[in-house]
């Protein structure tokens, strides 16, 4: 049991924090409010590439830093703390990690160096309507064709599909689930813009008899479901560390604000009701942080993490919801004023709460595992 950060981990944190502090501010974030501009900061992405951070978890053979998922998780936490317009989760977690772990040499050579340099963006199509489990696609299916597959179906809320070189798509076949690398510009792919609470570019991806060549098959039917399960667990754990950053920042913003804001002649922080609600946030964020780190740490070390990921996501949902409303309330009207930075954080707390399954859904899933004898306390 070690809850400390290694020197490398501190370096990643500090480097990322420095870049986001320098390049992300309420003014830069404002540009993409209400989709006025695309929520993607190319200069920032370039800076992350230059610093080597886009390759933090990519092997040195492909130009990366060669660290693991733990270090990537810490980068994601900093993205959360700054709510930087940088698609680190879709590109580096959902997109690049499974290719590195399960891809062929050719796929890795083709795609990973570009990820590290910032030239290649990847993403994954993880959700369908009323189906948040990418290991079990219901509305997307594929049939073998020309050594590859022909795939049809509809995916929802796919981030950055319009910029992606490839998007990871799972589809059911007669023999099981296959995982495909689909080119969003391929024939038969339609991208329909969605407008969502965070202003993140997201698309409904409609696939109609899209041809996927043999060298773009990431996993065949015998292992597709387990690849997607792993991908989903990594992405969920990453959403949890993002939530750690977002909630920690919102909570500390609230603490600072209430320490300055005076009513009745004193800082409102000195009212016990205010201090205690903030203290509840502190406890909540600590519980979330430890569960998120545990999930990431286990995945990084190749241990089973299904229970731990579900539990972390339950906390991410509950804590996001509670910290969002406590922060808004303790700010009074200022919390929701769009000239004050808190409100954007509230949208991201909501995003992380709902993406890939809410607390209720994860509780139900965990309850099933308890009933199956799979979640005893060790």
């Amino acid at each position, binding site marked *: 049991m070690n809850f400390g950060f290694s020197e490398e981990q501190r370096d990643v944190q500090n480097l990322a924090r420095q870049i986001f502090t320098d390049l992300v501010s309420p003014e830069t974030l404002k540009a993409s409010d209400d989709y006025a501009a695309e929520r993607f900061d190319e200069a920032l992405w370039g800076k992350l590439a230059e610093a080597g951070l886009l390759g933090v978890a990519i092997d040195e053979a492909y130009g990366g830093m060669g660290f693991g998922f733990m270090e990537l998780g810490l980068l994601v936490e900093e993205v959360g703390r700054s709510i930087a317009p940088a698609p680190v989760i879709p590109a580096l977690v959902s997109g690049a990690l499974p290719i590195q772990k399960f891809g062929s040499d050719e796929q890795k050579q083709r795609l990973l160096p570009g990820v590290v340099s910032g030239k290649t963006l990847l993403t994954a199509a993880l959700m369908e309507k009323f189906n948040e489990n990418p290991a079990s696609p219901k509305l997307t299916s594929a049939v073998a064709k020309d050594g590859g597959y022909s795939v049809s179906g509809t995916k929802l809320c796919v981030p950055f599909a319009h910029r992606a070189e490839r998007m990871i798509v799972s589809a059911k076949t007669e023999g099981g689930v296959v995982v495909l690398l689909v080119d969003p510009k391929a024939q038969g792919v339609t991208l329909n813009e969605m407008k969502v609470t965070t202003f993140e570019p997201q698309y409904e991806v409609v696939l109609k008899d899209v041809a996927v060549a043999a060298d773009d098959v990431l996993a065949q039917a015998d292992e597709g479901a387990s690849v997607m399960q792993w991908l989903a667990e990594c992405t969920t754990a990453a959403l949890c560390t993002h939530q750690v950053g977002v909630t920690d920042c919102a909570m500390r913003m609230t603490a600072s604000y209430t*320490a300055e804001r005076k009513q009745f002649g004193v800082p409102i922080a000195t009212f016990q009701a205010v201090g*205690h609600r903030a203290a509840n946030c502190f406890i909540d964020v600590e519980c979330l942080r*430890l569960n998120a780190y545990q999930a990431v740490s286990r995945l990084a070390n190749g241990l089973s993490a299904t229970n731990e990921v579900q539990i972390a996501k339950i906390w991410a949902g509950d804590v996001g919801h509670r910290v969002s409303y406590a922060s808004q309330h303790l700010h009074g009207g200022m919390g929701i004023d769009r000239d004050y930075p808190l409100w954007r954080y509230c949208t991201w707390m909501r995003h992380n709460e709902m993406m890939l399954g809410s607390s209720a859904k994860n509780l139900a899933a965990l309850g099933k595992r308890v009933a199956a004898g799979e979640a005893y306390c060790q």
Partner: protein
Amino acid sequence: MKVEFTPEQEALRTELRAYFNELMTPELRIECDRDMGEGGGPLWREALLKMGRDGWIGVGWPKELGGRGMSPIEQFIFVEEIMRAGYPFPFLTTESVGPQLAEHGNEWQKANIVPKILTGECLIAIGYSEPGAGTDLARLKTTAVKEGDEWVINGQKMWTSLAHFCDYVWLACRTDQNAEKPHRGISMFLVPTSDPGWSSTPVVTLGGVRTNATYYDNIRVTDDALVGELNKGWKLITGQLNRERLSLVNCGPTQQLFNGVVKWAEETELPEGGRLIDQPWVQMNLAKVRAGVEALKLVCYKQAWAMTEGTLDMADASAAKVYGSEFFIEVYRALGEVMEQMSLVSEHSPNAEQHASRVERLYRTASIITFGGGTNEIQRDIISAAGLWMPRATR
């Protein structure tokens, strides 16, 4: 960052689990139940001495002090396992007062008290609260007055738990009536309960747990009994409470109870057919407890790790105490709901069920640590001030 046990820690858990399995004989269990999970009976004492002989009580203590030289994480693993096994471990003595004495005690205390704590021969109760001094502990009135070479102690303490079978009371006394702030005039003493001037009367609580009112009538002690410096007792009190907090919210018993109820629900058939555990609402309650206990486990281990690193954070310690104490109440409620009416049937009833009757009692005891060990309101004050740098109202 590596949130998993090392192979050595896993091995220690396995070893301890087997050890306590053997130690907890049916006779000892019956005695502990009779004593309301407080201990103090003859078999309980015998088991404690055995643990002392086998070198377990101080597993995480330095070798110079008679321990095994492992870290606070191993010490926590030991306490977790012993509490899982259902043994009422005197953690106030071993985990909070003991380490304070080892660090701040005088030569006499280090030679005569500390070693006996590690052998299980010396038990110490905590004497802070008084009828007029609870949360506002610094207003305590029990006095120690110097007469020649001796201190003369007079006063009354309230809620002095375990004192009826302890050897000493770790007693907070006023030693300076004119201190500029009340907490600057307090000193700590180790007062023997064998003194003729010492007496106690039982106080029985909602959960059946016995505590005591204790009385101090012209008890005379020498400087050997004074712990640390004169009038510097407040730091010892807060230091002890910081250490106590981790033991109060130990995750072991809840994990054990959860596992027991899950197993029970797997085996329980509904009258209309099917297993109880396949009910969606049952799964929901169990999942809530499971998710909560995971957080408690991590919070506890982070504390133990921080103690190993020497970086124990005040806000984190308070957060652990508030979270754990309030979570326990929700656990007993949620698990009680799963066991329905049986969770109101006491262990003294002929048709009691093991886990349900345990919850019947636990549900009645659960409030103690939301105010005991430093009330949660004060803990939240500490969290907002020390953890979030929020200014506090002056009191």
